[in-house]
């Protein structure tokens, strides 16, 4: 250890010099910092103030409450219920996957759900709330609420959900709601549609009455913190969301349900088919039902693949609205059309008899009557009552397909009705031109013969058949079906048939159900009317062939429907109205593969018509008076 002399004076100066240099550098850096502060807080202050406001305030869109759909008596068919759900605001969630993991610990998330959440996050701006899970039960929901502090960006809310309480029988009419798709957003620029938690009508009345049901969005200015939690709500500006308006249907829920019950079978579940009950005077539909039904609530909560497969693979096609979209050969119910066309053409005298020997020969082809041994001599009234095919083969050759088609249209066949439930079809009323356009081949007389018994190219829906029956019953006006109350009522066009001709047809239809030998009379219930004293119905059976009948079958006579596989059995069809003398309701019923029209469809129609009248107070008045007398 040794000590050296003090550092020299030059060193002292050197360190002072260097201190000054460092000091100057320090001042420089302080200058830079001050300048930066000036830049941020003076020059760019406005921008940052705006950004700060952006941070601070969110304009939360207030979603309107969707209007309810009710039946004619106000019973809710589609209503709103509390839907406990979680949404995520991605910009406030630093670690999406981790947060989802934590949610999944309490309420499981499937891979599919997660994939959807990720997709939603990708496709939306970061501030839009993304649905994580909805329709949660209260226990799970409250458990998640307890953990919210661990779940940044997750917000719990009790939103609106849709419920269809009436057991599925209105599923086809109501349709269901769902997320707005890209196509919906393309045609509708309502910002509500971009809200991932918002639902719009996808099918049925939910879709057609969307504008009425939706309402309009409101706005709420809220101050939020970095985790998206609302610090406070600002009263101004606040616009309330305007709730959607209720839509009332002409349907009668009680009758609809009654009708659905009639389709039940003992051993094969619900029969497949459709039925429409229409007010003969106003055109209001009291029932519009497609069977079997499905639970529309499943579509709201998100269908599982199993549910979906089950629906899609069911041979009875529950999702398909057979009442307006099912095209069936009207079969013998079409005979009223041919009859009326014949009368209107004045080429046929209804009293002129035609001999039915069981078949008619045209060219080298036999056209068979359903009754192999033949009906014998038939005039027009008997022909309808007995549903004699030969008679109609015969007169249709005189009347011609064009006249038949014209009457069919005027009676309401071949028309797609805009009743507010999408997906209807127009069916087919064939003409020579139609065949040429459609198939490129010329019309043959054989086609006319097939059409004359409602087979061949003719296709109609239960709704069209009901309208046809209603117009025949109304006699004055071309009744149009109506489903939604409050839609502008148009005056119906005049029907413009000779009233005497219509009266003749109605009388023949009465004979079908009420006279010995009528095709619907043979079945016991009709001997007793429709279950109401003094009230009679008129109607017509139809048996729609699903397949050709082979010669051997014809020879052996083995045509028992019950022996055939379900898919090959005939469609059972019935149209009718009641009361016969003061028509009130008309019905068109089709039971797919239900066998002869005189059986399944006739029974259902009879019961439903009776119930419709009872619910309308017809026939019960007397009973009430009796009760009062007691």
């Amino acid at each position: 250890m040794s000590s050296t002399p003090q550092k020299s004076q030059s060193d002292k100066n050197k360190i002072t010099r260097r201190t000054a240099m460092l000091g100057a550098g320090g001042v420089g850096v302080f200058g830079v910092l001050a300048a930066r502060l000036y830049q941020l807080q003076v020059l760019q202050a406005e921008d940052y103030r705006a950004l700060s406001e952006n941070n601070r305030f969110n304009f939360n869109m207030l979603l309107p409450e969707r209007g309810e759909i009710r039946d004619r008596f106000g019973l809710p068919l589609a209503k709103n219920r509390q839907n406990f759900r979680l949404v995520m605001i991605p910009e406030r969630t630093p670690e999406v996957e981790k947060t989802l993991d934590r949610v999944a610990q309490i309420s499981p998330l499937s891979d599919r759900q997660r994939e959807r959440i990720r997709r939603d996050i990708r496709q939306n701006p970061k501030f839009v709330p993304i649905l994580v899970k909805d329709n949660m039960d209260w226990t799970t929901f409250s458990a998640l609420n307890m953990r919210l502090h661990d779940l940044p960006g997750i917000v719990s809310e009790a939103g609106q959900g849709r419920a269809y309480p009436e057991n599925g029988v209105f599923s086809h009419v109501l349709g269901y709601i769902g997320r707005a798709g890209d196509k919906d957003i393309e045609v509708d620029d309502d910002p509500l549609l971009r809200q991932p938690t918002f639902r719009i009508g996808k099918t049925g009345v939910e879709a057609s009455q969307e504008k009425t049901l939706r309402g309009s969005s409101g706005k709420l200015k809220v101050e939020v913190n970095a985790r998206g939690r609302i610090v406070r709500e600002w009263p101004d500006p606040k616009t309330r969301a305007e709730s959607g308006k209720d839509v009332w249907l002409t349907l009668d829920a009680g009758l609809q349900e009654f009708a659905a019950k009639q389709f039940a079978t003992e051993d094969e579940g619900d029969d497949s088919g459709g039925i429409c009950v229409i007010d003969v005077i106003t055109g209001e539909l009291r029932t519009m039902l497609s069977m079997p039904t499905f639970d529309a609530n499943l579509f709201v909560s998100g269908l599982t693949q199993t549910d979906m497969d089950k629906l899609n693979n069911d041979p009875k096609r529950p999702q398909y609205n057979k009442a307006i979209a099912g095209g069936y050969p009207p079969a013998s119910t079409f005979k009223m059309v041919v009859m009326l066309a014949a009368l209107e053409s004045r080429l046929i005298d209804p009293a002129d008899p035609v001999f039915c020997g069981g078949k008619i020969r045209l060219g080298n082809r036999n056209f068979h009557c359903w009754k192999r041994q033949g009906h014998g001599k038939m005039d027009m009234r008997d022909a309808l009552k007995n549903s004699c095919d030969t008679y109609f083969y015969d007169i249709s050759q005189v009347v011609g397909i064009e006249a038949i088609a014209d009457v069919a249209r005027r009676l309401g066949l071949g028309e797609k009705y805009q009743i507010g439930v999408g997906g209807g079809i127009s069916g087919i009323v064939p003409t020579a031109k139609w065949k040429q356009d459609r198939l490129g081949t010329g019309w043959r007389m054989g086609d006319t013969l097939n059409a004359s018994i409602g087979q061949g190219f003719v296709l109609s829906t239960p709704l069209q058949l009901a309208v046809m029956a209603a117009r025949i019953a109304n006699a004055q006006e071309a009744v149009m079906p109506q489903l939604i109350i409050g839609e502008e009522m148009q005056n119906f066009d005049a029907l413009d048939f000779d009233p005497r001709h219509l009266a003749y047809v109605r009388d023949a239809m009465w004979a079908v159900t009420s006279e010995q030998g009528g095709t619907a009379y043979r079945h016991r219930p009709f001997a007793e009317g429709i279950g109401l004293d003094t009230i009679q119905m008129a109607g017509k059976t139809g048996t729609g062939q699903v397949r050709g009948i082979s010669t051997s079958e014809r020879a052996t006579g083995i045509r028992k429907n019950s022996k055939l596989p379900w898919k090959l059995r005939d469609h059972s069809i019935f149209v009718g109205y009641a009361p016969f003398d003061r028509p009130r309701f008309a019905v068109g019923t089709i039971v797919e593969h239900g066998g002869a029209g005189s059986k399944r469809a006739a029974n259902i129609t009879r019961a439903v018509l009776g119930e419709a009248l009872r619910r309308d107070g017809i026939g019960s008045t007397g009973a009430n008076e009796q009760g009062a007398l007691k």
Partner: protein
Amino acid sequence: MAFQSPSFRGSRSTSGGSLTTKLFEVNWLLMTLVGLVGLVGVAMIFAATDGVWQRGAFQHLTRIAFGGVVMLGVAMIDIRLWYRLAYPIYVLGVILLVGVEFVGVEVNGSARWLDFGVARLQPSEIMKPAIVLALARYYHDLPDWKVSDVWGLMGALILLVVPMALIFRQPDLGTTLLLAATGVAIVFLAGISWRVISLASVFAAVSISLFFKFGLKAYQQERILTFLDPSRDPAGASYHITQSKIALGSGGVHGKGFMKGTQRQGEYVPENRTDFIFTVIGEEFGLIGGLMTLGLYMSVITVCIWLSLQCKEMFSKLMILGLTTTFTLYIFINLGMVMGLAPVVGVPLPLISYGGTVILAVMGGFGLILSAHLHRGVELPRTT
């Protein structure tokens, strides 16, 4: 002449006076300024914690008060003792850092703490004054002609690199850089020749780029890259910077008023009680508050430099300037980060940010400065 006896020079300079005399001779201007900065910290922590006294402001006040006592205590101790303790303190610091390596407590992915049961200690904070002491003594003892010589430089480098490496492994990039910069400043002040400086600069440029590529963890690289190009990841790593700038900018000239910062209330700026506390100042007191804070810091630094100029001994001068450099770098790095001029490295704003060890280390450092100034008349030995 191993140890020179103290000599008295000038009428006011003293080192051997009684405790009361010494207390009077302490530079009270620096004491006051440091205390003021500390009080700014108390107020801002109070605001940052939504006015909940117990969530930091009270602790901060206690620490400042305790720190003031420590500062005075350190100042009273004879500079010769500090001179003698320079290397032992340095060695202790290194040992504690090694301890962190093995039994460190991990917080937010880096092990920086030693848990002594009653208190947690951050050895890297102790290392900051320790490295200054060690280097000051090293250059005090080093003959002039060796300052720019390879061996002379080597010694300084070894003193510097050992703690740097240990701190870097924690990992704590901010403190590592701070240590490096402080060391470089002392070497510079010690009078190293410009030739060496220019050579070293070239070498540093090359090694820094290599270091960035291979020596940094992914998140550290990401932070720096994000800083250089904030659009890389607007929601992720640069969220801090963006929100911090919004807080500052929206404060404007006058600020939103004490306790009225909306960015703060909304908890948009993370860590605003600690590293990002300047955002609270800027948001609630605006440009005026920000510049006043800068001014306060500058006065502290100016006073320190002024004190260093009054010292005669190399050890005292280098120690004061080294500690001042550390303090200044704290401010630069922190404010640069908060204002979006430097990457987010996690360096507190000295005396204002919440955090115990830092306050003790910084105020202990100021105690050393005061001691050096108080004992400026004392002659120090030179050991070579």
